[in-house]
């Protein structure tokens, strides 16, 4: 009960905020990262004539074919050329020059890829024209034709890869990506409480499995059990490499559909629906709360009297008060006072984080409404259908089978997370494009 007051982490926190401010955006440096899932190589056909088409859920690179993205890219390249030209100019104030150089630097990786694409396109054109001219000739050139065709395929492949890279370079960096998180799992309160609690425990186990799969630290801050081996609520701190980047899209309502195995509802052999909610609160390193011991007041039963050997008490409760803010945390979960103190300290830290984060996100939120999608935490994001052995993510339509394997929190979960992540990045790119003021006429790409 003590911990139910724990950060009911504001829904804002787990939305994704990007630091990019349109034209002042920070570009993700190019990585060799390629998307495998949908990397089906097709012929490059429409590279010259961009047909605006509705974005279907497929290749990351096909964003390139969106008119608005094309225009945006052209605009950026113009800006790059412009900036480079301006820097050459003699009559520039020092401060202006600095701004221009900084901007040029930001655009440079993008420009490099863009240039590579241009070169590749020229090569392709040449090959194509050679092919065309050789089409009329006789069989003695068959070998040459074959060579040319190989060449063409190769260049086309390269262009596709480069385009993907280009789009990836457009994805704004989320400064919180490397953060650790506090994750809460909360059982739903809808019909059939026991099915929700059961499911909450399974979800908890899944994330624990995922943390171990990713070699992250998984530290339980609170674990409130329910009947029949269910779980009411749990809070954990997950620390490791890029934790927030991986789990940020897990926040939201998860739905379960199954014939219950235990509990009241198991008596009726029909499919029940339950929910649970995941809340993700990033804990960025730079906000790592530095707590001065002098600012703390620690209350224990043993504070009275002489303590030490002269007193034998079993009251191991600890309360810590952070004097400057009045924030308190207390713990009496264990029989060890030291463990209670450590837990209380972590809770206090999490609460201080939360209040700092709250302020921070509010500021960012009012400054700019820039997030991936417009989903709030309360929206249902995924369904776990045990009866049909299927997991469906409603944001992307991604479907995967073998629910048992999925709930182990290993590769299957990571695949889904990567897919959602990619989807979110696409949306983020489009957001950047739209907010840059590139308007499309006619059909919308989004």
């Amino acid at each position, binding site marked *: 009960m*003590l911990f139910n007051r724990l950060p009911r982490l504001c829904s804002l926190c787990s939305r994704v905020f990007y630091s990019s401010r349109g034209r002042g955006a920070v570009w993700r440096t190019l990585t060799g990262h390629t998307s495998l899932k949908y990397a089906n190589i097709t012929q490059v056909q429409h590279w010259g004539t961009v047909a605006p088409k509705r974005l279907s859920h497929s290749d990351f690179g096909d964003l390139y074919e969106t008119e608005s993205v094309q225009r945006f890219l052209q605009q950026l390249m113009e800006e790059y050329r412009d900036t480079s030209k301006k820097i050459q100019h003699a009559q520039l104030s020092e401060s202006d020059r600095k701004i221009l150089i900084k901007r040029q630097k930001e655009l440079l990786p993008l420009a490099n890829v863009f240039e590579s694409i241009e070169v590749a396109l020229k090569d392709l054109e040449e090959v194509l024209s050679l092919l065309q001219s050789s089409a009329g000739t006789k069989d003695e050139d068959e070998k040459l034709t074959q060579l040319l065709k190989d060449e063409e395929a190769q260049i086309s492949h390269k262009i596709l890869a480069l385009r993907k890279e280009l789009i990836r370079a457009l994805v704004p960096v989320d400064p919180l990506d490397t953060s650790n998180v506090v994750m809460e799992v909360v059982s739903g309160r809808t019909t059939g409480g026991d099915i929700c609690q059961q499911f909450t425990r399974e979800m908890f186990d899944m994330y624990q499995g995922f943390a171990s799969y990713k070699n992250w630290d998984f530290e339980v801050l609170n674990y409130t*059990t*329910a*009947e029949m081996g269910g779980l009411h609520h749990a809070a954990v701190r997950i620390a490791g490499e890029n934790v927030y980047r991986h789990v940020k899209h897990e926040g939201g309502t998860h739905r379960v559909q199954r014939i219950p195995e235990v509990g009241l509802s198991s008596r009726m052999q029909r499919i029940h629906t339950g929910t649970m909610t995941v809340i993700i609160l990033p804990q960025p390193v730079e906000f790592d709360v530095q707590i001065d011991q002098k600012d703390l007041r*620690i209350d*224990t039963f*043993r*504070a009275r009297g*002489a*303590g*030490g*050997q*002269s*007193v*034998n*008490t*079993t*009251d*191991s409760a*600890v309360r810590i008060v952070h004097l400057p803010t009045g924030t308190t945390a207390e713990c*009496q*979960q*264990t*029989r*060890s*006072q*030291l*463990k209670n*103190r450590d837990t209380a300290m972590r809770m206090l830290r999490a609460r201080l984080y939360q209040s700092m984060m709250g302020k921070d996100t509010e500021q960012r939120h009012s400054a700019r409404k820039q997030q991936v999608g417009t989903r709030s935490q309360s929206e249902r994001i995924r369904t776990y259908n045990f009866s049909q052995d299927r997991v469906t993510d409603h944001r992307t339509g991604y479907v995967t089978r073998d629910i048992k394997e999925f709930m182990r929190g290993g590769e299957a979960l990571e695949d889904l997370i990567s897919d959602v992540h990619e989807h979110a990045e696409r949306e983020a790119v489009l957001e950047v494009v739209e907010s840059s003021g590139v308007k499309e006429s006619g059909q919308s790409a989004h």
Partner: protein
Amino acid sequence: MLKRSLIAGYTCFGCWSVGPKGLWGYHAVRACSAPALPAGRITARQAADLWKRHFAERGVTEPDHSSHYILAYLLGAKTIESLEQGKLTEFLSREKTEQMWKLCSQRLCRMPVQYVIEEWDFRDLTLKMRPPVFIPRPETEELVELVLNDLQMKPRTEVGAQETCLEVGCGSGAISLSLLKSLPQLKAIAVDQSQDAVDLTGENALRLGLQDRLQIHHLDVMKDAETVLSLCSSVSVLVSNPPYLFSEDMTALEPEVYWFEDHAALDGGNDGLDVIKQILTLAPKILSDHGRVYLEVDPRHPPLIQRWVEVNVEEMHYVETRHDISGRPRFCILRKEKSNKDHKLDLD
């Protein structure tokens, strides 16, 4: 005053007639009048409430915690908070009810909860507890933390060099076992003047699977100094929660402490320094160079110890006093230094 009158009140019951050794006998239990076993069935919560009230009426300290811990123990949990909520409203079986009555009756006779349920937690360990072996106090958890922090900070200068730790007065083994648990490279030697303590430390070591790195000896540092010296040399850490109470304060102790715990683990002599002085005298011969002593002491002790060491033990250097969670000066850290003649640069 209150404590004294409580003790006086208890002696009137007549179940305390022999010397201190006889105090731990379970015969004392029956002398305390427990409420009658309920005729019908009662729920766990009702049983806890009933005993809480009864404890309170009889002036038993921590009535609610006592009944809660005993109930939780019977239901297979450590704390009532970690019990499933539904369990509290379920009826207790006849057997469980009888057990509850038996254990709570012991508590009614002021037996510490830790002895009643025969276990307690110390840091992340659960240790077996048995009278009259001293029950570790929360302050000692902090003593272990001090040692751990220092040992973990130490750069691994000599690769593969194994550190050894000596504990004087191991009691249930709490300190040594915690250190061994947290530091897989460490070896420890534990000594105690009480056979009960030696046995209990051994049992706890076995339960935790730490027996291979722990030597336990039945030794009294006051009498068997030579044996202690022959057993250990070049120890890097000497840690102790020695008896540090002033003899005159002994009679003011709560019945839980005074009647049930080994006085030899509590009474430190007139100024509470008897064992502490002996430890510090032996320390230079036991420790390796720059080896450290960590002591838990009475809040009045640190300045006394510092002065005494400066005068009497040339090779020991008083490093610092640390405070416990409630801000009392509770821990003394000392370090072995080469004597002034061949004093070298302090590399620590």
